[in-house]
């Protein structure tokens, strides 16, 4: 990225106005990913003065400001309490501390990266996003949108429901993108299974989820769920793995994840 000017917005509304002034105007989260892009920017708008770095508990929710650095999510007891730590553990798998202290939750969500290790657990935990103009929208809905996001993400809301989670990142080294990530969450009366970095964006294994309903996780049910996942989800090939290998990983780790979640239950 190459920027001509940096503007520190003094209100969310101002940030929004500036962002929509010109196609090249861009909001900076941590700016880490943006830095790598060959993009020319007229004005870079920062939210640094808007106090959006927070993790707050409310009765049934955790609210996380969009400018909260990833490392804060790793360290937060509140975030750790969500889905038996899957979110904080998943984020702990993103690069090293020097990057996690810069990259923000907002940038990680708005970027909608196919490789993301952060979006799948958020999805599984039913996260909602609060935008300045669009207002509240589920993360799931947001991921269906395309094109540049000319709105300001204010915070991410995660319900504090009791759930048990499993997250697995398969990568060549710990500093690598996921070859595949597998997220499984057992909720009160259902299961959620998500496959991310296929290398395309994260998807639900809906047929497997529908089949499982709130059935017990015995071998037979697990095998059927894995079979349905295999039939439903497609995988792609890129420089780090072939579709075939991703398929092998998916069926292995969905099975192991379900087993683990099942063991946790009993």
């Amino acid at each position, binding site marked *: *990225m*190459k*920027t*001509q*000017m*940096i503007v520190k917005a003094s209100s969310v509304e101002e940030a929004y106005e500036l962002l929509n002034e010109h196609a090249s105007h861009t909001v*900076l989260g*941590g*700016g*880490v990913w943006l*830095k*790598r892009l060959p993009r020319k920017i007229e004005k*870079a708008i*920062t939210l*640094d003065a808007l106090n959006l770095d927070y993790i707050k508990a409310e009765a049934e929710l955790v609210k996380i400001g969009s400018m909260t650095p990833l*490392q804060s999510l790793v360290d937060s007891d509140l975030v750790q309490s969500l889905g038996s730590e899957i979110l904080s553990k998943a984020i*702990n798998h993103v*690069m*090293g*501390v*020097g*990057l996690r*202290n*810069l990259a923000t939750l907002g940038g990680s969500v708005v970027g909608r990266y196919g490789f993301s290790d952060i979006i799948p657990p958020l999805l599984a935990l039913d996260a909602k996003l609060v935008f300045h103009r669009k207002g509240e929208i589920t993360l799931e809905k947001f991921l269906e949108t395309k094109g540049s996001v000319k709105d300001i993400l204010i915070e991410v809301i995660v319900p504090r429901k009791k759930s048990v989670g499993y997250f697995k990142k398969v990568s060549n080294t*710990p*500093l690598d993108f996921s070859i595949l990530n597998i997220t499984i969450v057992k909720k009160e009366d259902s299961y959620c299974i998500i496959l991310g970095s296929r290398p395309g964006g994260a998807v639900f294994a809906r047929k497997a989820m529908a089949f499982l309903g709130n059935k017990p996780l015995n071998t037979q049910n697990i095998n059927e769920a894995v079979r349905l996942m295999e039939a439903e989800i497609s995988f792609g090939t890129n420089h780090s793995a072939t579709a075939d290998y991703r398929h092998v990983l998916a069926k292995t780790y969905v099975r192991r994840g379900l087993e683990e979640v099942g063991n946790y239950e009993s």
Partner: protein
Amino acid sequence: MKVKLLLNGRERIFSVHANEYLLDTLRNHNILSVKKGCDASTCGVCTVLKDGKPILSCSMLTARCEGANITTVEGLQDEVNKFYEYFGQEGADQCGFCNPATALTVIAMKKHLKDPNPESILSYMVGNLCRCSGYVAQNKAIKKYLEDKS
């Protein structure tokens, strides 16, 4: 534009372009312990402490550091000396290009991690690449330094 930093305990004002990153600002002003290894947030040799936390200076716009407390090994000589005692003892130093960044990360970790265990230590350190040492001697030195409560 003008940016005021508390750099290694001293107030400094730098005149920078909007697109200038902290790594370049520091190196242009003779803070040479901070290295450029990839300029793309993947190697860790540009690590500095911002308000006590390790960050990759290659990816931090200087303009966003207004008022921040920036520390490099130049400003932490005593503590680095202390860490080096263990590092040198283990023979963990080779080319040294990554060592100032390693030292800063380790020193910050000592403050940050209340109850360090091998897993949390590695998660903290994993972004600091080294191509010379094979890491094991470094990890031994880090462990000893963390145990040193003096």
